[in-house]
């Protein structure tokens, strides 16, 4: 019983770590390039979930100044780190998507195995 209680207490962090590993698993095992980019996005979002979970205060109020003094606010710093982190993950995704367009234009395929096969074939030729 006590383990389930502990499990429920830490559910945010376990969820974040699970998402991180799912993202890593998609990036590593999936063959389609766009699926790998999605895996990268999942990893980014999981770290932001982890950061929010750190800064969360149960019964906390979003950090805008309230009138009555004895209201407790959540920790604002992780939210600022996330605002900066989201833009970073977005720009990395856009860049890898533009590379995928070019790879599709040049090789005609987005599958990682066919790509490595085509590249190895070219190396043998020249």
């Amino acid at each position: 019983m006590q383990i389930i209680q502990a499990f429920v207490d830490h559910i945010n962090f376990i969820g974040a770590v699970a998402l991180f590993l799912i993202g890593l698993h998609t990036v590593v095992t999936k063959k389609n390039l766009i699926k790998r980019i999605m895996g990268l996005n999942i990893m980014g979002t999981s770290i932001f979930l982890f950061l929010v979970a750190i800064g969360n205060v149960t019964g906390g109020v979003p950090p805008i100044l309230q009138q009555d003094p004895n209201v407790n606010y959540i920790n604002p710093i992780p939210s600022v780190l996330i605002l900066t982190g989201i833009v970073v993950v977005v720009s990395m995704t856009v860049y890898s998507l533009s590379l995928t367009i070019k790879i599709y234009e040049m090789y005609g395929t987005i599958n990682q195995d066919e790509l490595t096969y085509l590249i190895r074939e070219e190396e043998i030729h020249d």
Partner: protein
Amino acid sequence: MDDRIVKSITRLVIPFIQLYGIFIILHGHITPGGGFSGGTLIGTSLILYTLVFGLLPSKKKFSHRMSQIAESGGIVIYVGIGLIGLFLSGQFLTNLDAGFPIGEPGELFSAGMIPLLMITIGIKVASTMVSLFHLLIEGDLDADHPGIR
């Protein structure tokens, strides 16, 4: 997508989206939101315009030259505000000690340089989203059937 209904609805809706985006940017230091979320709103309204009216008319609306100016202009203004802090009070990016007016907390014109930075970030995020969207479309067009615009 040259459906008459969709075009007229977007023509109606886009100004309100942009107005709401500007509201969020300007009230960045009072209500939640700020440069990033407001900029995304304005960027999405321009992307909606591109989706509905096609690439070429929207290129006229938000031409390449404008996006270039918005991109480098955003950083120049940001660094300029930082330099004001540097010259007036010796540290880069200082807010109130560098003479930015603090105003009444909670009012629109308060909190020194924060609204200025929010506007700069808003312009930057909006113009980045739109120019990225245009670049990706052009890239895709060249990839599938080069030459057709």
